[in-house]
């Protein structure tokens, strides 16, 4: 196994482009190292990104948007009060991952690129409209988070491509987001269903919404019918029921050791309602 710790993303990209066999980037390593030790994936090339300048930074931009380095950890995000005020849903989704120890290493980028359909931060990022910069042999391009995963364990990144930054849009006025997952326990478990909701209000009326589902299909889903169900409403019971129905209808889950098709489909609707209520309250400036 070859281990590299490049000083730039261009260098990392070149190393990956020229590598043979299995290549893995090392952000927090909470997926890579676990898979290595349990002999699920034994990489031939390991490219550690943590030596690249600025990879742990969390920066707020002049337009109110945010740029996060690819090695910024869940713990650092949770400690960042302003980020948490703007995007509590994204931060709480990341914060659900693992234990205190895991939080000290795990990253949004790793969670996204590991390609698990159950990844917790991904539906929250999709709902929030997060995008990433992809650096490759051809240079940089910007890609929406929902366009990165293509199936369990698979991404749209080509050989030699990697993510070099994460962009969270400006929060703007009267907006709120939330993420909820279902697990049978209270922590240290994997999402059976995950729902991210992000919305904006004009008075009491929802004017913009993005609803995203995790763990109910081979990839994260951005469900337009869910958004339609609540846009123009005051999140009354009828709108919530329509939201739940749309969420359940969008599900394309599997039966497995973690949950049944019927269960995931039903609970996706339940969580969509609950997350929407939290996002709505946050948009109104209420504590939730």
């Amino acid at each position, binding site marked *: 196994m070859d281990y590299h710790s490049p000083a730039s993303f261009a260098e990392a990209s070149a190393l990956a482009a020229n590598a043979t066999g299995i290549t893995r980037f090392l952000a927090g390593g909470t997926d890579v190292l676990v898979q290595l030790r349990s002999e699920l994936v034994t990489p031939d090339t390991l490219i550690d990104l943590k030596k690249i300048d600025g990879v742990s930074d969390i920066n707020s931009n002049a337009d109110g948007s945010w740029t996060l380095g690819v090695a910024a950890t869940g713990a650092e995000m949770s400690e960042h009060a302003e980020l948490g005020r703007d995007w509590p849903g994204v931060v709480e989704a990341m914060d659900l991952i693992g234990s205190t120890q895991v939080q000290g290493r795990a990253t949004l980028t790793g969670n996204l690129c590991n390609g698990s359909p159950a990844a917790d931060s991904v539906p929250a990022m999709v709902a929030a409209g997060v995008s990433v910069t992809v650096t490759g042999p051809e240079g940089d391009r910007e890609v929406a988070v929902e366009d990165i995963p293509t199936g369990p364990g698979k991404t749209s990144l080509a050989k030699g491509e990697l993510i070099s930054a994460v962009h969270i849009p400006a929060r703007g006025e009267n907006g709120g987001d939330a993420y909820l997952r279902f697990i*049978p*326990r*209270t*922590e240290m*478990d994997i999402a059976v269903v995950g729902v991210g909701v992000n919305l904006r209000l004009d008075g009491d009326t929802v004017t913009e919404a993005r609803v995203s589902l995790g763990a109910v299909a081979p990839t994260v889903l951005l469900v337009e019918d869910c958004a339609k169900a609540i846009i123009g409403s005051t999140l009354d019971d009828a709108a919530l029921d329509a939201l739940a129905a749309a969420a359940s209808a969008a599900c394309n889950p599997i039966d497995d050791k973690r*949950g049944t098709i*019927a*269960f995931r489909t039903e*609970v996706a609707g339940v969580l969509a309602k609950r997350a929407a209520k939290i996002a709505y309250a946050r948009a109104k400036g209420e504590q939730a």
Partner: protein
Amino acid sequence: MALDDRKSEFTFVGTRPNRPDGLDKVTGRAKFGADMSAPGMLHGAILRSPHAHARIVKIDTSKAEAHKEVKAVVTRADFADVPFKPGLEGEFWNVLENVMAGEKALYDGHAVAAVAATSALAARDALKLIEVEYEVLPHVTDVDKAMAPDAPVIREGAADYSVPEGMHPNVVRYHESGHGDVEAGFAEADLVIEDSFVTEATHQGYIEPHACLGMLGNDGKGELWCTTQGHWIAQKTCAALLGIETSQLRVTASEIGGGFGGKTTVFIEPVALALSRKANRPVKLVMTRSEVFRATGPTSSASMDIKIGMKKDGTISAAQGVFRLQGGAFPGAPGDMTAMCAFAPYNLTNVKQVGYDVMANRPKQAAYRAPGAPMGAFAVESVIDELCKKLGLDPVDVRLKNAAHEGTKASYGPRYERIGLVETLEAAKAHPHYSAPLKPGQGRGISCGFWFNHGGETSVSLALSEDGSAQLMVGTPDIGGSRASMALMAAEVLGIPYENIRVTIADTATLGYNDVSHGSRVTYASGLATIKAAKHAVEKLCERAAASWGIPTDAVKWENGCAVPSGPNAGDFDPRPLADITAHMGSTGGPISGHFEATPEGAGVSFGTHIVDAEVDPETGKTSITRYTVIQDAGKAIHPTYVEGQYQGGAAQGIGWALNEEYIYGEDGRLQNSIFLDYRIPVASDLPMIDTVIVEVPNPGHPFGVRGVGETGIVPPLAAIANAVSHAAGVRMRQLPMSPPRILAALKENG
């Protein structure tokens, strides 16, 4: 055993000092199974079957043997019993067959070969070089399917005499017991409920994986360090499996990171020794978590039919149960225990119980706290709860009305001596928990539970030091704070402080045979032997004092740690403290020790009653346990904190078993959830504070009144939680675990 010296006033017993192993454990100094190393040590790894059932056509180890870091490879041919040299039979043969597959791999994870190499990584890599040719056979993992006529046969001829004619060869033992006439009893009932229940296999979930370090020379002399609940059984079994003399193998028990019954047999120990014998170097073997789940001994899964008749006043007029337990690809599922325990809390005129031991393509089951009893209690206590509900009766009152007491003919045969079931029920009724209001969406459940408890072979020695301190050697690994309890009991007899007694778990070369730390027997049996060994030493102390005073020994008695004249007629001498006598023991007759060994028979059965509140989210089927109270008879709590710990542990494991823990097998017969991420044991935040009430109805079979407490605590939870959840959800849950998908499906079905 007759005991005429019962004690009821105590100085040390009943206090709560810190455990002597506490500091080592919190500072990381304690040595567990994987913490031992030896010069020249090799690392072992085991190749396991990926098939649930397959004939092993050929194993080619040549490539692994050629690996430059590999020092030994073993297969079944390296053990005592090979097809050409049969010798082992009965349980030894079963254990050997489990430790290393013979002609067939019998379950996913069954060991087929092992290597020892100079590094753990090399050993793991070398496994990939072993080529095994399998002929995959049809498999069965479900207990009911394993009994069906078309089920694949796991092993012909495994059934014993007890199995009625015409049963499938996978049914290997049959039990039937009871008394009275159940049909007549059902005819007398105002309401009869008949229902069926299913539980899945669960794992004890001890945090420490199996680990050992073995050394065995070609001279047949060996040393073994391992994490175990019983090093003498490990010694005996390993010796048999390797064809060496028992006494030539010295086994030392490490500190143990949990066992709960799962470490009462051997898995990797004989393999490490076989590798060591071949490589002529020490070999360390440490299981991964996945190996622990796939290839050690989970509990049995069960399928049960219950029929109970009740009169309007709550009297149970008849009770009947059929209990089918699947215990893996070997005989041993405790269907008989399930049957015998199921109705044991009740004073019944008409009762009948039947138990089946059924083989399936799963790992060989091992004990798990009160093996077999929790599932039976789940089924029986659910039906009693349903009867109470339908007849509008209070569940505690109904249990009190039918409760067994001293003199009751137990459902499994004998008459009870003094028992404490009624006292636990009365304490439940009086407990504030039982009358606390419930919030909407919450339900309350009650259950009783019974376990036999066990005595077992026991040998204990105590040696006094010149400075008046004492060292106590017991042979039962400390799985629950027993060193503290032993020291308290010895302190009580000797009259010296707790801190002055050092308790050691002696190795197999130091004491006679000691049965395993199981059957809730340690505080009872090793405790009884400790008391007797200390009394033995006290007799000698009195002899020395008598000699120094020139009076007969029977004119001296032991009081508050001193020899004193037994009365005014014995003479007027100053008391001689223990340390004063030991200071001169070298010149007054030599070292002073005490010893006791026996197989005590008076373990004293134990009962408990649990009260549980559960809240069910009707939209997701998720359950949270909001309040939990354990009430159990301890006879006499030697160290109350560790008694409470046992109660809380039983409840915690019961919550896991009831709500989320289960072995999940795929269509291919492979275990799907062999990691803690997917085998959902409760995490700390899943549990409420578990309240405890220690009831003390002294056991007439122990000098201080002790009853074992380790196992009874896991008997009521499954039922108590199922009753609470069924009330909260408004629908009867008949299958464990009551995972959210199952509860939500039941809610939907119920409309």
